[in-house]
């Protein structure tokens, strides 16, 4: 089972990388970009019976630092119905 973990900085946490990329987009002439936030994607290939609880535990213990980051868990390939 493929699972995608999206890790992003919490709202309100300054993202210097995002700010720099925002400036670069402005410099390239792309108008109307309101904000840029940089995150991280972690793709996992795990046993089909891996529970959401286990995935959350992976995120809380290692994949995200919940002091500064939020995460979302996406199931990329659903098991056949």
């Amino acid at each position, binding site marked *: 089972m493929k699972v995608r973990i999206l890790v992003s900085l919490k709202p309100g*946490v*300054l993202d*210097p*990388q995002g700010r*720099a990329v925002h400036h670069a987009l402005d410099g390239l002439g792309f108008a109307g970009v309101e904000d840029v936030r940089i995150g991280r994607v972690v793709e996992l290939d795990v046993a089909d019976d891996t529970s959401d609880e286990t995935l959350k535990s992976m995120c809380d*213990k*290692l*994949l995200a*630092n919940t*002091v*500064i980051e939020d995460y979302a868990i996406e199931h990329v390939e659903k098991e056949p119905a």
Partner: protein
Amino acid sequence: MGAGSNAFKAGVITFPGSNCDRDMAVALEAVTGTPTIRIWHGDADLPKGLDFLALPGGFSYGDYLRSGAMAAKSPIMRAVVTAAEGGLPVLGVCNGFQVLTEAGLLPGALMRNAGQTFICRTVPLKVTNTSSPFTQGFDIGETIRIPVAHHDGNYFADDATLDMLEGEGRVAFRYEEPVNGSQRDIAGVLSANGRILGMMPHPERAIEPAAHPSMGGADGKRLFESVLAALVSV
């Protein structure tokens, strides 16, 4: 502790990618007069009778995932967390500070410097705590000069945590000039019991007067002397 000055046992952990471990060991030896015990990250236990432990600077595990995140989960860190919770004094410098926050021994997190660049220079710090083993040898409000060398030194915690740290006198050092965007100019923080210190500046790089003022100076040595005096007199 029960440490006599002759038998003061200080240890330094080496993670894969640590690069200030030898400097830390040398700095400790210069003050304790006894060889510093070197500890490998893969060890399951700390040496018996350790009086003081330091987590050095560097780029443990190549800063994979987040600075300090992998090292915080290495085998030796389980023993470090247990020992620290039992009162063992622990100093984390630079990457060591990042490891301590990732391990949950200190609050907050170290983020990418606000200016995006690696910063390597000697900076002025204001001493804002003199009640911990690490800082009791300084004067409150005095300025010391310690080198920094980091890319991820931008201290972040939420306002409630920052208020708590300030209210409890747990901010050990503050930058006296803009350095890396740290919240409230925090350069070093203490645990609630004052026995764990994490700081981005490198005291082990400032242990002897240098020929040129840009090269560190000796203010860092006072931190190690402070630790020794505090722990041996207890």
